[in-house]
């Protein structure tokens, strides 16, 4: 994780890695009823094949370059067939934003949702 964010406070500085934020985001997204899984990107899938553990797959986290402590998140979910996609996407956005802001203290600038697929559950 080369991309860390640093928040300077009086007692020192603390830093969070991308994977740490991504883990919270993916757990929050998976709690929504109707989200089956998250699709990892191609590079992450290769990494998983090689046996390296990657936290929070299916979520891309980009730290804002201008403002310290702001972050924008992209989630790639697979949705259950029969659910109305816009409603689920808005629920994901709200839940991810709320959870990440509460657990990490960062300000979430934007949560983008890119629905990758729809699967039928037998």
């Amino acid at each position, binding site marked *: 994780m080369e991309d860390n964010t640093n928040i300077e406070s009086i007692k020192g500085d603390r830093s969070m890695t991308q994977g740490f934020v991504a883990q919270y985001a993916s757990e929050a997204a998976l709690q929504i009823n109707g989200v089956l899984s998250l699709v990892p990107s191609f590079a992450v899938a290769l990494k998983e094949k090689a046996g390296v553990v990657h936290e929070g797959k299916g979520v891309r986290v980009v730290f804002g370059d201008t403002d310290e402590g702001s972050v924008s998140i992209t989630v790639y979910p697979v949705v259950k067939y029969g659910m109305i*996609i816009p409603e689920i996407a808005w629920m994901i*956005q709200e839940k991810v934003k709320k959870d990440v802001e509460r657990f990490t203290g960062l300000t979430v600038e934007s949560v*983008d949702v890119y*629905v990758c697929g729809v699967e039928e559950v037998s």
Partner: protein
Amino acid sequence: MNSFIRALMFIYSIVIAVISVVLLYALVDDGIFADILSPLSSIVTGPISKWIYLGVLLLLFITSIVSITNIITSGRLNRTRLRKNDIGTVDIGPDAIESIALNAAKSAQVGIKSARCHVAPAKNQRLRVTISCELYSNVEIPSSMAKVQEKVKKDIERFTGIAVEQVVVRVSKVEQAQAKVESR
């Protein structure tokens, strides 16, 4: 761009790419010009004209590769942006829409054995869905395919909120009915 012009451009750019590769090979081994194109061999062996030749050919090659990839990807829907609210954007990928269409077609209960789907963008933010399917033998095609169209259109509009302009159903194959004789 209709499909005929697209196919023509595809073939044309492949030909250009192949020609430029062959002519690039001539830089390495100028023997192949000896009998066919003798004036070119003097260009290749010249000190300055050699680099101009290389540049022109690389330009040709790169543009043909770019146009090939462009042609292949242009027919397909890239992504659909639903709405941008204050939190962020919501996009739906083409795979999601395709699998909604396939699930809808299969759940219409009209005897579709297997199906493939293609989603393309149409005018003013609408979709055009093409389903090519393989049927079982005991299906009345006109009435049941009308049912499939209706169901696919309704499902996509309900689940994604994107308007569907038209649903094209192509029956590519009907499974052959065979008398089954079982012996013990």
